[in-house]
């Protein structure tokens, strides 16, 4: 779930005509508006998901122009909070009351359908759910949202609210915003009441799922050129680039921010699917002698091309000592293709790691056989496990293999020149070297193509326009094992990995 900071949440509310306190968003001191509202004003650093903003000094009341420039400078500069997206300057207003309003989801249970929940309290602040007397908790349908009259009727049962119609209209606007943008959480806190009885959103925030954002709204949810310092590592950025280049399947990668103890073994992981992650976590979650350097989920039908590229990132983690690869143990992805990706990554990575590999699913036997054939040429020790051996048994071997010496590998030199075939999806470059295959018969690399994309005729290598390359790496694998290296595949990596 991602967080939307106040200034961008305001854009959504404004589109639904929800009244807001006057405010201006700036990203530089020079931008501050000439027609600044009369003092006092509030400066609010805009950091998605930031909590306790007042106590952390991220919200400041300003009473004089001198203070204004000085504090704007502070909040726009990097601080213990990182770098804010900018500062929202809002007008200071006299309120006679502060309310709380929020929309969230109820996932339902056996006896209750899921839906939305509207929370409204005549007291602002946090912890509203504990206030029985002053809290309205109204379930609502996302399919058939409540009318303003329905909300007003509910409000009349609540003590301490006099502006029923105005508040009901405001809450209706909130619900429309909430449903219209398919948000997970939308909060206005406080919702301020002015002397004339009108009401305004003084502060607000939202949470959302990336998959729920429509393309037409990307400018609000994912604005280009944000100056914020996101909590993202260089290798995580590399995986973002890979996913952008090849969006097939799941390619999740996140590095562990915790600090390992000196004694802990640092394990880089490739855990295929949520099940694989859970097996590893259940095995090592309570162990302090094993430090899991990253989470990674490569599943959902991704190609071996993409598996290779993410494995290269996993292997590039500084100070990693061992690679651990497992899925749940019965993948629907072809395990021989995955094994080819692992072999290629270990061959071509400048930092290969001793590896524990568990293959389970279609062609699991072929996956293990591949490593039996190539074990003497690998730059690092590798042990493979059948699916019936679970991570709780694999982990017993982990210190042994970390201590085993590897060989000196050859430095990988990518193919040069124009590729023979460029595959768009999944992206990859196929190089064919005719001088390495002088025989008349079909080379093993072409015969290994499972889709018929690669063809062989009198003129040599051709492709079938009706067939597709699925990025399985079987051609290169066969060329290296059974042929004369007549086909090589080049898969581009973000610079940081090499």
């Amino acid at each position, binding site marked *: 779930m991602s967080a939307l900071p106040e200034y961008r949440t305001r854009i959504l509310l404004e589109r639904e005509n929800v009244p807001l306190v006057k405010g201006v968003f700036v990203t530089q001191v020079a931008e501050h508006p000439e027609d600044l509202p009369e003092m006092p004003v509030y400066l609010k650093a805009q950091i998605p998901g930031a909590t306790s903003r007042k106590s952390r000094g991220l919200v400041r009341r300003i009473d004089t122009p001198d203070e204004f420039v000085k504090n704007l400078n502070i909040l726009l500069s990097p601080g213990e909070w990182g770098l804010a997206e900018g500062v929202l300057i809002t007008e200071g207003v006299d309120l006679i009351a502060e309310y709380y309003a929020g929309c969230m989801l109820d996932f339902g249970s*056996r006896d209750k359908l*899921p839906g939305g929940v509207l929370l409204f309290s005549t007291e602002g602040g946090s912890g509203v759910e504990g206030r029985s007397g002053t809290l309205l908790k109204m379930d609502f349908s996302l399919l058939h949202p409540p009318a303003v009259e329905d909300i007003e009727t509910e409000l009349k049962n609540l003590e301490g609210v006099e502006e029923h119609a105005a508040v009901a209209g405001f809450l209706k606007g909130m619900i429309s915003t909430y449903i219209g943008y398919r948000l997970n959480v939308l909060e206005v806190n406080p919702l301020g009441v002015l002397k004339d009885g009108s009401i305004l959103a003084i502060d607000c925030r939202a949470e959302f799922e990336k998959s729920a954002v429509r393309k037409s709204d990307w400018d609000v949810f994912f604005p280009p050129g944000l100056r914020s310092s996101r909590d993202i590592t260089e290798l995580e950025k590399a995986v973002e680039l890979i996913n952008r280049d090849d969006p097939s399947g799941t390619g999740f990668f996140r590095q562990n921010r915790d600090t390992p103890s000196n004694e802990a073994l640092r394990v880089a992981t490739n855990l295929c699917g*949520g099940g694989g992650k859970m*097996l590893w976590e259940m095995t090592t979650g309570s162990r302090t002698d094993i430090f899991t350097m990253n989470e990674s989920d490569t599943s959902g039908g991704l190609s071996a091309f993409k598996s290779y590229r993410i494995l290269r990132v996993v292997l590039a983690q500084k100070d990693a000592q061992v690679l651990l690869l497992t899925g749940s143990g019965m993948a629907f992805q072809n395990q021989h293709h995955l094994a080819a990706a692992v072999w290629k990554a270990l061959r071509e990575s400048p930092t290969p790691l001793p590896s524990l590999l568990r293959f389970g699913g279609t062609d699991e036997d072929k996956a293990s056989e591949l490593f039996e054939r190539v074990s003497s040429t690998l730059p690092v020790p590798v042990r493979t496990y059948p*699916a019936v051996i679970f991570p709780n048994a694999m982990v017993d071997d982990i210190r042994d293999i970390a201590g085993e010496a590897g060989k000196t590998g050859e430095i990988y030199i990518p193919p040069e020149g124009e590729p023979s075939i460029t595959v768009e999806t999944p992206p990859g470059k196929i190089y064919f070297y005719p001088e390495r295959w002088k025989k008349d018969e079909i080379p093993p690399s072409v015969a290994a193509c499972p889709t018929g994309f690669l063809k062989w005729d009198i003129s040599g290598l051709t492709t079938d326009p009706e067939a597709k390359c699925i990025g399985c790496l079987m051609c290169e694998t066969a060329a290296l094992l059974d042929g004369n290296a007549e086909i090589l595949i080049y898969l581009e990596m973000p610079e940081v990995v090499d």
Partner: protein
Amino acid sequence: MAGILKYLAGVETPKTLVFGITGKQGRSKARLMKKFGTEIIAGCTPGKGGQEVDGVPVFNSAAEAVNTFPQLNTAVLFVPASAVKKAAFDAVDAGLKFLVLIADGVPTQDEIILKEYVSTKEAVYLGPNTVGLLDTEGYLFGLIGGSATWARKNYRPGKVGVISRSGGLSQLLGAFHCRPDLPGPRADGSYGPLWGEDYPGLSAVVCVGGDPVPGISMLDAAIAFEKDPRTEVMALYGETGTTQENDLAEAVMKGEITKPIVVFLGGKFTKAGISQSHAGAMIRNEDETWEAKQKALLDAGITVVERPDAVFGAVLGKLKNS
């Protein structure tokens, strides 16, 4: 004998419509399903009506397909997450009784709206974010097995009903109950083959999916297996997030489910409030923690194991006692 769909959806003989059959995944998985034995009558892709895929006629909508083939009663949706809600509405409006929603990343609000909408119809759905359902009577919806040959080899008729919130563990728990000489921890504390050629086998695998608002819940699936005469024991994979395990425990406590259940419960080290690769595994309140679920399940007399290979020995023990 009817398969598990009779008890899940009132469907004895599935006749299936494949949404997205003209796409890469839809086409290849329709082939897998067909080779396994699923009767695929028609496909559906808006704008591509009139085409054929592997001899299967394609329609623009479910209504058009049902108009031509009124025997259609089930559907599987290989459509992008953003298109799931609309396609599912189309399918249930056309009168289909059982849907499988494969896509990962369906917005939670769409899932909630879908659940409310379908609750007013005579239909149920599996997913979203599921690998589907396999019944050893001879039909398959979704991706389970990867290839028909592999699926036939690894999923054999027998006595165990599998329910899981993970795609991978659905496949694992199903296949390993059909694997001769499977090693694992035994009741006496030793480790070794649990059975020889006389493996317990499988009635069906039902993957309820990894999302926070599943259509068919673990409890719904368990009630179906309770009614299914082939199933003697249920093997489940549960985890943190949602109330599914809690609801199941309550139903067992009330005596609504009497067949023995073994649960591998994952998520012991999952931290509250942190997004998980299974969106539904995120802990939102105390009841959704691993500890609360473990307690609820144990209090109901359900066997809970903390390592996956302990499931099979525990299932064997239940079968011996039954």
